[in-house]
């Protein structure tokens, strides 16, 4: 499978994606606007709370082509962050007390300056999260030592594993991904990640492999711990349940499988105002591979820049102006407010 961009698919145009989202209907009627739901909850305009996390997307290049990828990442994507832009991120970071830098992609480790960036973040005394797809660790021998590198810098590893069965994992992430992921998890466990007496954190991410919402995070975590422990001897810290947002390749899947309307209706029906108050965009700044600034990684993939007078590029970082912005919302935001809520840190309620 190739990316939407490489296939020149209509959905590679983010303007078209936004049109599809805005015009979503269920049973012949337009879905309620997300902004209307926020207004009813007294949350419109949606405003930032204290900035806690800088999430940096260091590039769209990836060794996998997952069916649900909202980044439309893959081996055919060449957009990656330069060291110059990384330095601008570090300069911005140094002006703030942001404690956590969340590195995502693509496969962030494929950026040639990835390790340099992690070292610089450590030097600033900040914690790094890496959103590691696991298979990159076993993709090439130059990556085999990633577990030791992560451990040396106390990097928090957050890895996708949508199911404890090979079938459901491979259906979403590609043939053979489950077996490679298990090998990589064993390598992470071997250096101390996820072990009960260790401070090296290994969290797993559960995304549904289809057009349905995640179940209870606590319940799924128990199932995953039991199954991965019993069948593979694997340990980890927390399972984070994340709802698939109707963006990019997951939107394509929904449309092609005939599930789009029903899925949008499910998200609207499961709208939870408590989750709306806790959305992660309120405490996150998202930086694109080219340094542009967004409210979250989903807005980034929809080309929805931060609004108003907030700086649009990390080189112009200004904490005060960013704090004063209104967060950009659209219909995809229902994905973060359904049920127990969803964020890069899992459920929000």
């Amino acid at each position, binding site marked *: 499978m190739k990316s939407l961009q490489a296939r020149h698919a209509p959905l590679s145009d983010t303007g078209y994606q936004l049109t599809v989202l805005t015009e979503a209907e269920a049973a012949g009627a337009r879905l309620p606007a997300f902004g209307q739901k926020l207004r009813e909850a007294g949350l419109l305009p949606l405003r930032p709370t204290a900035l806690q996390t800088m999430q940096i997307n260091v590039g769209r290049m990836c060794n996998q082509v997952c069916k649900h990828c909202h980044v439309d990442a893959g081996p055919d994507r060449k957009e990656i962050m330069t060291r110059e832009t990384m330095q601008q991120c570090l300069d911005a970071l140094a002006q703030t007390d942001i404690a956590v830098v969340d590195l995502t992609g693509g496969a962030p480790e494929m950026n040639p300056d990835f390790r340099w960036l992690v070292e610089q973040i450590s030097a600033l005394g900040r914690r790094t999260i890496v959103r590691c797809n696991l298979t990159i660790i076993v993709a090439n021998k130059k990556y085999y030592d990633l577990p030791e590198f992560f451990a040396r810098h106390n990097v928090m590893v957050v890895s996708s594993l949508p199911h404890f*069965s090979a*079938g*459901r994992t491979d259906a979403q992430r590609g043939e053979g991904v489950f077996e490679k992921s298990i090998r990589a998890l064993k390598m992470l466990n071997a250096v101390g990640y996820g072990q009960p007496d260790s401070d090296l954190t290994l969290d797993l991410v*559960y995304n549904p492999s289809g057009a*349905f919402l995640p*179940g*209870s995070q606590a*319940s*799924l975590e128990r*199932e995953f711990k039991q199954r991965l422990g019993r069948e593979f001897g694997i340990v980890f810290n927390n399972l984070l349940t994340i709802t698939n947002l109707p963006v990019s390749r997951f939107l394509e899947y929904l449309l092609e499988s005939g599930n789009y309307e029903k899925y949008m209706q499910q998200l609207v029906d499961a709208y939870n105002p408590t989750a709306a108050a806790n959305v992660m965009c309120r405490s996150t700044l998202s930086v694109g591979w080219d340094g542009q600034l967004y409210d979250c990684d989903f807005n980034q993939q929809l080309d929805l820049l931060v609004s108003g007078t907030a700086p649009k590029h990390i080189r112009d970082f200004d904490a005060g102006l960013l704090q004063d912005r209104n967060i950009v919302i659209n219909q995809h935001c229902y994905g973060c407010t359904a049920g127990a809520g969803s964020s890069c840190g899992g459920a929000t309620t």
Partner: protein
Amino acid sequence: MDSTYYNPADLAKFGNITEWQPEMGNKFFAYYAEVFKDGALTEREKALIALAVAHAVQCPYCIDAYTTDSLQKGADEAQMMEAVHVAAAIKGGAALVHSVQMMNKAKELSM
């Protein structure tokens, strides 16, 4: 639209049964919600039991609802099909075990 006894859209209206008898309906739904919470059985195990029962009672609404619920609770295809085989084994066994009665009666009537 073709006229049929079952309309998929009716599943979403299940809650409306409280309109004509609120007290009993609300008690039923409160009980229902309690039953499916994590307990001595996990939510996933309960969803799979419900899926098996849905097939045994041949309720199309329940099959749709508990296929979705089983997936949401983390079940995979193999677990779901095995659950249905449990229902099939019990349904089939329930028919076959009555053949003992048939055998008894036949023996009673035969030389």
